[in-house]
């Protein structure tokens, strides 16, 4: 742990709601001893560095910087598999449904929605791709971040945490971090500010080059990809005009050829109009935007799960992984901590769940004997009880 002595540590015991905070450890040995002795359900540390991390008054801790943190959580990403394992229920009228929860109940319109979420290999795979996207598309090329300063951790449950330790970024204030989060999420992105404009009143349409760096190149490449793949129907929905969509698709090859030229020629899209071009740009960049929980990035005093500690809701390890190992990392197998033995559990309700090599479910009100890791996972999720 980078600079452990300047981090605040916090613990949550099983069955408790209040975190034990403002703890400081000068070395990993004493932390380890504490964990063995106290066996907390969750272990957290501050993304921030403090002069006096143990001070109970936040204002007296002496904040002197914080890692830049990103949280990618499968819960926030709409995936196809959610309808297989997630459920939601409206607490007002009792309407139930499967999959990604709606903003408000389709029956009564209220917003008190309770969700039961599980993750599977597919969600975790999607989340893993978000991590690669964040690093390969944004943090490394645009922000110049070195892999030496990057720590990737499986969160232990539903996704990954990315810790950027680059010293020059530690002093960023919350508003600066919001700008970074908005950058990777494309919030407030204005295509016009990235090069699209009509020179003089009836002049040519100029735009960015696909070889440009930053958002300029990204927008150009996204539009190229979008146009090369889209159908007339897709385009019609986006730009709202059947005839313009037809014209565009008929001239697809010429337009694409122009975009790839150096310098690029966006002449082919002149007829579509700037307003419609903006809509195409908006639609094109959707897949390249990052799905992060921006609240974590903004927080300069965030408590985040301690790498390689156990997650109290899954029994899995919040494994730290190197960039090179990330591709082949399979959290539901590789983050298993309890490798031996079996336990008997009574399962109230669970969808198909796989931990390691063992898979069970969907199950309802059943008693089963399962490998320890799987049993623990179900118990920690609150879906099962241990039996003697």
């Amino acid at each position: 742990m980078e600079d452990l002595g300047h981090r605040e540590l916090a613990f949550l015991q099983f069955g408790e709601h209040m975190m034990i905070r403002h703890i400081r450890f000068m070395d990993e040995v004493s932390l380890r001893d504490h964990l063995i002795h106290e066996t907390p359900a969750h272990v957290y540390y501050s993304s921030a560095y403090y002069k006096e991390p143990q001070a109970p008054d936040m204002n007296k801790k002496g904040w002197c910087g914080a890692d830049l943190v990103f949280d990618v959580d499968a819960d926030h990403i709409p995936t196809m598999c959610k309808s297989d394992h997630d459920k939601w229920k409206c607490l007002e009228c009792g309407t139930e449904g499967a999959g990604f929860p709606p903003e408000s109940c389709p029956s009564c319109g209220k917003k008190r929605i309770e969700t039961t979420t599980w993750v599977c290999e597919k969600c975790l795979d999607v989340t893993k791709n978000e991590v690669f996207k964040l690093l390969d598309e944004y943090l490394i090329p645009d922000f110049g971040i070195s892999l030496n300063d990057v720590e990737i951790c499986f969160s232990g449950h539903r996704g990954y945490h990315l810790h950027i330790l680059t010293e020059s970024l530690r002093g960023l204030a919350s508003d600066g971090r919001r700008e970074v989060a908005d950058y990777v999420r494309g919030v407030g992105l204005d295509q016009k500010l990235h090069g699209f404009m009509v020179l003089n009143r009836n002049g040519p349409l100029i735009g960015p080059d696909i070889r440009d760096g930053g958002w300029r190149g990204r927008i150009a490449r996204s539009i190229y990809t979008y146009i090369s793949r889209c159908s007339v129907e897709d385009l019609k929905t986006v730009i709202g005009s059947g005839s313009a969509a037809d014209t565009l698709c008929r001239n697809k090859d010429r337009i694409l050829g122009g975009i790839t030229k150096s310098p690029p020629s966006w002449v082919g899209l002149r007829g579509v109009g700037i307003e419609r071009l903006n809509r195409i740009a908006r639609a094109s960049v959707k897949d390249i935007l990052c799905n992060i929980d921006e609240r974590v990035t903004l927080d300069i005093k965030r408590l985040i799960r301690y790498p390689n500690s156990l997650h109290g809701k899954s029994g899995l390890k919040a494994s730290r992984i190197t960039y090179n190992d990330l591709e082949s990392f399979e959290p539901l197998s590789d983050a298993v901590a309890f490798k031996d033995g079996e336990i008997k559990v009574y399962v109230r309700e669970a969808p198909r769940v796989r931990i390691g090599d063992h898979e069970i479910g969907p199950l309802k009100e059943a008693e089963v004997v399962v490998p320890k890791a799987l049993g623990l996972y179900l118990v920690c999720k609150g879906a099962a009880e241990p039996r003697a």
Partner: protein
Amino acid sequence: MREMLAREDLAKYPFLRKASSFIGGYGLTLKDLAAPEYSGIVKRAVERVRDSIEGRKIVTDWKDPETEILAYPLALAFAYGLKAGWVIRRFATAESKRCYELLKMEDGQKLIEVAEDGFGWKLEPIEMNVEGKRFDFMLGVTEYLEVAPQFHSANWKLVNRYILRGRVHLKQSEVARLLSESVKNKIVKRAMEEEVRKFEVPEAFGPYLEEVMRLVEKKRKFYDDEAPVGLVEEAKPPCIMAMISDLAAGKSLSHMARFTITTFMINVGENVDNVLRLFSKVADFDEEKARYQIEHIAGRIGSKTKYAPPKCDVLKSYGLCVGANALCERVRHPLQYYKIRAREIARGAAKAQGGRKAA
């Protein structure tokens, strides 16, 4: 080839460390400057403060760089010594505008030196043209983000900037804007420091400052209707603190309570987004609706009908008064409480008003 910053440059940019060293070289204390032989410097310092209060453009006096350089810290001292937030802000704004005009046209190498000496920023010159857009400099993302988030227009947002390998690409005028805004921030921030809050202008300067102090009193009445922009946390009356505390806990407030807290926040200069954030924890928070309502209240400010929070009597009848402390007894309106308390805090008054500690 590094260019040495000449005296004229120190006069242009007196916030530089080099300027401080230059001044240090004279071995003068603040009190020394009250002596008659320095009256030219004192008069220039007073002039700068007066001009900034009156909203007049401050023009750098080239003819006498030494006076300019020495007058600046003295003018700052006077501005801080007047113990009025609005005076400091006006001074800071005038100073930043003056610097902006100069930095916009400054020689590239000098600009780099100013950035380094004044703020520890590493500006790199580039000559880059990207499909019709010209860039003159690159600046590290962290430095850029020290200032840029304070500008609210779309073109300052990081997402709309050209960034490569951690460096934001900028035109000279944009660099000038960032630097001059940093000058302003520095001046305003220093006012919060303990040492500055306690600072008193030596009596010897009394005669020079008479006119300015009369001007400040005259203008104070005008500016007093304008409460400090942005909430002064400790100045909130107990009723408001209770409402904020409830909102933070996700509790749903009555209509009158919501109206009160919104109008209060808008009247003390908070922007719509910050007010919106207060409500975000409530269970039935509908951002679009809330924003519309808050904007409606905020939009009325400046027009004839000004939405103000209800007075204490009204709050009492709606059950929103949580119990009066000593200051509450003296006022009839939550904004009145706030203004008095904020002024006390600005003056660094250690005396806490109010017997009971509010929530």
